[in-house]
């Protein structure tokens, strides 16, 4: 059977954040400061036929939101000062198209115009050329309605083109922004009630893939860390990261981790609680095509 495609979604009002969804993770010292973004992943099976009951159910739930192919296309203004009055400010589904008319990203929003405006400011302008909108017919639609409309737009696009919009593929952070780095403590003034080593141990066992890097994930401060982050992201790996140079929030981590892992350099990548290696090993595995298998274990 074909592996399910992992899809991630821009969903501004869905919480709780990633870390607290797992029951054993409500550990007060890990602050990830997720704001309004979350990364639910859907397994859309491309090969399995859909049961009839599910189809009729879907029809009923979002009969109010039109199909992707039947929705109106609106141009997105290039001028950052120019607010698009034509884009509705209400809730609904939207799909952003690039300059070549290719669908790049499908999102849901409580305020479509504002979401599109945010994308326009954070995403290269040639990727944000026009938008199709599927406004909901009520001011405060149920979240399920929007989610199922989002899902059916994605499925409609997959059945038309064979693949999900690039911005919705898990690990692509162009549209939804990379998750922030995990911080071990709220600040240096906080004394740990648990030994740092145990904290590291819990962290690497509770997250499937953990990368300890120099600098933040969005701005690594070392070429090797940068390379590891880009390899992991380009392989769509769902991972959390920690900045070992952040002495304010991760005080002592850098030295303690070296002894914990018996590995003297950074970056370090853990999978399932085990050290896989640093930049050389990750690059090596990526070249041999063995990375995917490792992360699917």
């Amino acid at each position: 059977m074909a592996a399910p495609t992992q899809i991630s979604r821009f969903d501004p009002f869905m919480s709780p954040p990633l870390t607290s969804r797992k029951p054993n993770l409500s550990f007060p010292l890990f602050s990830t400061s997720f704001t309004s973004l979350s990364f639910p992943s859907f397994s859309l099976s491309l090969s399995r036929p859909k049961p009839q009951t599910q189809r009729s159910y879907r029809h009923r739930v979002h009969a109010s939101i039109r199909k992707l192919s039947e929705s109106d296309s609106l141009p997105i203004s290039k001028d950052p000062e120019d607010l698009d009055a034509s884009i509705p400010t209400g809730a609904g589904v939207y799909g952003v198209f690039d300059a070549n008319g290719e669908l790049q990203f499908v999102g849901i929003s409580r305020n479509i115009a504002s979401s599109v405006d945010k994308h326009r400011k954070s995403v290269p302008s040639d990727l944000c050329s026009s938008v199709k909108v599927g406004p909901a017919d009520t001011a405060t639609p149920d979240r399920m309605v929007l989610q199922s409309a989002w899902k059916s737009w994605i499925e409609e696009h997959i059945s038309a083109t064979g693949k999900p919009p690039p911005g919705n593929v898990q690990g692509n952070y162009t549209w939804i922004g990379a998750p922030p780095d995990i911080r071990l403590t709220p600040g240096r003034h906080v004394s740990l009630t648990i030994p740092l080593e145990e904290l590291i141990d819990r962290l690497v066992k509770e997250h499937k893939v953990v990368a300890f890097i120099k600098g933040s994930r969005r701005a690594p401060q070392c070429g090797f860390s940068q390379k590891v982050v880009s390899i992991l992201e380009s392989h769509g790996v769902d991972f959390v990261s920690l900045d070992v140079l952040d002495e304010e929030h991760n005080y002592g981590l850098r030295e303690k981790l070296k002894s914990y892992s018996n590995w003297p350099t950074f970056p370090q990548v853990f999978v399932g609680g085990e050290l896989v290696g640093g930049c050389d090993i990750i690059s090596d595995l990526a070249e041999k095509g063995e990375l995917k298998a490792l992360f699917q274990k």
Partner: protein
Amino acid sequence: MASRGANVVLSRANRMRQTLQSALEASVLELEDVSYQHAGHAGVEKGANETHFNVKIVSPKFEGQSLVKRHRMVYDLLSDELKSGLHALSIVAKAPKETGS
């Protein structure tokens, strides 16, 4: 340490070469000092040299060992250097069978 005096005059590269060669019985041992590529980046002291190396080793001792194990063997051998200013290594560690020659 009897070799203390000798260490002072030997460069780090030469010390590393000797250590690795004698412990790993390497059939290939290439060391390249790439410190200039990393001069002044985070965590490296100003004016420090011989901080970053590319190492390529082919050794029968790597036979049957995982990549992590092989890298650890190299790191362990060079632990004194890592404590005294060696900052990062890029390691290619192969067993003789894997070199394809």
